[in-house]
């Protein structure tokens, strides 16, 4: 059924979330809050070198220390074959994942795990780590993406031959893959152009910086049954990868989803769980592990840093006729940056006849990148949206007019071959033009920037159950970790379908043994895909409720309708019966056929792409180079906001992560290839005093593939901020800042250089 044009009572309202009280009172149980009887503490030894051969690891002294129960290295893990799997941002190789969580033969970045211990206290575990003697043969390292691509650069993997070039190279290199997308005739396009603009841009790796460090509690029983408590974006993912990396049967692994303290893509893969299980197996006791913040920075995430060039050609009237982009993405120590979506997203907002995009996936001695909100798109769009703005200046056009003129509409064919369907970009641009912020006079010395952004959003596999309790209240269970309020939205959709108040519906996140497979919480998919499963399960329950009422009244089931939470006779011919509400039917469910419930599993397709436009005003302190965000407005097509507050929250949070990426966040390396700022003091995330209110404007163009019209919202908002801010800075001081972050020293240097 479709509720897009229905009169909705619950969906679109703002009830208090069902897990809210636990979270404001400190009672919510996150991964690090769990304990087990007889538990040990696990700790990981990490490489101090950016690149080195492991000559030997002597664990004997650590093993001999009182209170140490297990010490493991890669020798305790199966040496698994190369096999591609699909992780958050794209294909990932299980052999690489195994070598990433426990180095085999070589360490490839500072912070790379190479041994682990389990001991009675964290302090004893730390002492044991210090007793592990590792002999390294230190190798030359490479950090920067352009350096890593050069001939003669230290090669990380001697079996890496660039994929995507013909013929296959004979020499190993750090370029894992080359990707190209072509549309039309790029040379003819530039020949036709009357105005050409070209520039180069760089971005730094930034960490997802979820406040909760990775943590887990694992128990390997003598009979081979494993229990894991872990915070992740997908407990089925934790089960699958742990099974794979340790060669265990999935039926022997039960993963309980702890509350998750932020992920943003960074918890779509695993680091600790197989290590904790291996330690537990060796020690014969449960093992708890948690990363320090330093471990999180050095050993997990971040997203790619990149080097990008953009060339645009346009007619004098502003029609863009040619667009070219070259993107070089850092993958970290193993192949697999989000180069594919990076190549696809930059020009996805524009209808351009001739496009040529070339992307490189490049390894270097950094932690392997993990997905981060709309992986690849923010980097690509930063470059494109700066270039589009400068093209507008060169053309003497208003930047919004230029974007309106070239914007994609339904049916526009992108350079990656897909035609946009059911998109709301036109409506987003109209809302931008109409917004008071766009029309507001600009204060003296301030600059205003605009940028737009796109993300695909995904669907995929989800399972949900709806149970009717004996008193007519309702339980909903799904397999999707609740990372930002999804219990609320799942409960609201159920309540809407059943016609009951949301307070009568309680939603839980079920463990891997208690519900059907559910793909991880990522790709902005939960409200869409899991929401679809929940809605269908609730509809199946309604069918049963109608059948039970029909039985009670002894009339045909098609003579019963479900209205406002009650079974009613369908018209006067059906007979005159008092309506039966959920509680009345539930009270007799035993007599009418047994418990009323439904489980639905879907593989949801047609997620519905998202578009956003951000307007940003800045003030630049010319003395210090500090950029202050004065006003910020984020406009986005959200399809249908199930719980508008949490939709706004996604947009505000995404925009602020983008502001951090733009102005202050970066990995800083010394000449030994070691990260110099692995803490929140020096890795500078935005804090409350850095920011104004972030106005989120919800544009609702329903996605016809979702019962309520929802489309993903969590990722789009991190795409526009970097360019919006760079464009605003250009407006304020007349200078283009093409390199992120646009931190005070860089802005000041640019002002000085300009005289």
């Amino acid at each position, binding site marked *: 059924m479709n509720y897009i044009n229905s009169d909705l009572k619950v969906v679109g309202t703002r009830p208090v979330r069902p897990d809210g009280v636990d979270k404001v009172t400190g009672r919510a149980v996150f991964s690090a809050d769990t304990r087990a009887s007889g538990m040990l503490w696990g700790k990981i030894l990490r490489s101090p070198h950016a690149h080195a051969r492991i000559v030997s690891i002597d664990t004997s002294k650590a093993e001999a220390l009182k209170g140490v129960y297990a010490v493991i290295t890669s020798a305790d893990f199966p040496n698994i074959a190369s096999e591609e799997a699909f992780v958050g941002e794209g294909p990932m190789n299980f052999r690489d994942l195994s070598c990433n969580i426990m180095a085999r033969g070589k360490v490839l970045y500072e912070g790379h795990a190479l041994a682990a211990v389990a001991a009675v206290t964290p*302090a004893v575990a730390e002492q044991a780590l210090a007793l592990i003697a590792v002999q390294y043969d230190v190798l030359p390292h490479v950090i920067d993406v352009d350096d890593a691509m050069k001939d003669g650069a230290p090669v990380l993997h001697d079996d890496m031959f660039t994929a995507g070039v013909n013929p296959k190279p004979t020499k190993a290199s750090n370029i894992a893959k080359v990707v190209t997308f072509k549309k039309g005739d790029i040379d003819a396009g530039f020949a036709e152009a009357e105005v050409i603009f070209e520039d180069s841009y760089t971005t730094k790796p930034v960490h997802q910086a979820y406040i909760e*460090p990775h943590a887990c509690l694992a128990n390997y029983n003598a009979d081979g049954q494993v229990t894991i408590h872990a915070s992740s974006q997908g407990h089925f993912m934790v089960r699958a990868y742990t099974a794979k990396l340790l060669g265990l049967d999935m039926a022997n692994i039960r993963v309980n989803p702890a509350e998750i303290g932020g992920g943003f893509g960074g918890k779509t893969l695993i680091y600790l769980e197989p290590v904790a299980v291996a330690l537990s197996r060796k020690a014969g006791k449960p093992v708890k592990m948690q990363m320090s913040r330093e471990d999180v920075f050095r050993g997990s995430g971040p997203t790619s840093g990149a080097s990008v060039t953009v060339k645009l050609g346009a007619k004098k009237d502003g029609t863009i006729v040619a667009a070219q982009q070259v993107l070089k993405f850092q993958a970290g120590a193993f192949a697999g940056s989000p180069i594919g979506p990076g190549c696809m997203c930059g020009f996805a907002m524009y209808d351009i006849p001739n496009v040529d995009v070339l992307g490189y996936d490049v390894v270097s001695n950094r932690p392997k990148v993990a997905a981060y909100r709309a992986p690849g798109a923010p980097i690509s769009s930063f470059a494109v949206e700066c270039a589009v703005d400068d093209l507008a200046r060169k053309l003497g056009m208003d930047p919004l007019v230029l974007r309106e003129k070239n914007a994609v509409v339904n049916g526009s064919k992108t350079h990656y071959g897909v035609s946009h369907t059911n998109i709301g970009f036109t409506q987003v641009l109209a809302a931008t033009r109409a917004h008071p912020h766009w029309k507001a006079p600009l204060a003296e010395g301030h600059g205003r920037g605009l940028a737009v952004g796109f993300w695909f959003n995904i669907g995929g596999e989800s399972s949900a159950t709806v149970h009717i309790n004996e008193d007519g209240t309702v339980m909903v269970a799904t397999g999707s970790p609740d990372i930002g309020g999804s219990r609320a939205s799942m409960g609201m959709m159920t309540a809407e379908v059943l016609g009951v108040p949301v307070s009568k519906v309680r939603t839980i996140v079920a463990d891997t043994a208690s519900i059907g497979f559910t793909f991880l919480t990522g790709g902005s998919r939960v409200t869409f895909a899991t929401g679809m499963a929940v809605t269908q399960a609730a509809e199946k329950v309604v069918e049963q409720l109608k059948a039970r009422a029909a039985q009670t009244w002894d009339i045909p089931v098609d003579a019963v309708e479900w209205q406002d939470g009650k079974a009613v006779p369908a018209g006067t011919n059906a007979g005159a019966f008092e309506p039966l509400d959920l509680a009345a039917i539930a009270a007799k469910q035993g007599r009418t056929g047994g418990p009323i419930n439904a489980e639905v599993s879907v593989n949801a397709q047609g997620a519905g792409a998202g578009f956003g436009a951000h307007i940003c005003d800045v003030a630049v302190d010319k003395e210090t180079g500090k950029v202050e965000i004065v006003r910020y407005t984020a406009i986005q097509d959200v399809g249908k906001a199930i719980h508008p507050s949490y939709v706004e929250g996604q947009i505000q949070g995404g925009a602020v992560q983008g502001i951090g990426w733009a102005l202050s966040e970066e990995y800083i390396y010394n000449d030994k290839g070691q990260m110099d700022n692995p803490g929140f003091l020096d890795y500078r995330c935005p804090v409350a005093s850095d920011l104004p209110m972030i106005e989120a404007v919800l544009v609702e163009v329903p996605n016809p593939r979702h019962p309520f019209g929802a489309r993903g919202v969590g990722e789009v908002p991190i795409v526009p901020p970097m360019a919006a801010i760079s464009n605003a800075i250009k407006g304020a001081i007349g200078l283009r800042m093409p390199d992120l972050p646009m931190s005070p020293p860089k802005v000041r240097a640019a002002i000085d250089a300009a005289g």
Partner: protein
Amino acid sequence: MSKSHVTTTINGEAAEFLCETQQTMLDVLRDVVGLTGSKEGCASGDCGACSILVDGTLVCSCLMLGVEAEGKSITTIEGIAQGDQLHPIQQKFLEHAALQCGFCTPGLIVATKALLDENPNPTEIEARYWLAGNLCRCTGYDKVIRAVMDAAAVMRGETV
């Protein structure tokens, strides 16, 4: 290694615990006393997720030793609500959807309590600077600040 005996008050109740001298108050709360509402986000005093009140003063419990609790009065997130009655700050965080993952929330609520105890009528700027020691990665702080300002108004008796 002999442990130290500490006599203190936690959330209004007399409390005693044994701890190692190098153990932080955060580790003592979480691993010895069993109050896990205070969170470890950084263990270096930068994120504020472990915020507690010590004799009414806002402290990162990861930067305080357990033995320093001797003779003090400690308030953690578990002590903010009165029985089943949520504190207005907690209520406003819920109403304004000022949390997403909820991991930084205990620290933010304790820090807000300290702010409003000291300054019942803060400006938005004052609230933003006071809470600058509490990192939140999900919300962008917009709804957090709205919740704080609204809670302050309620506590002053201006609105409900």
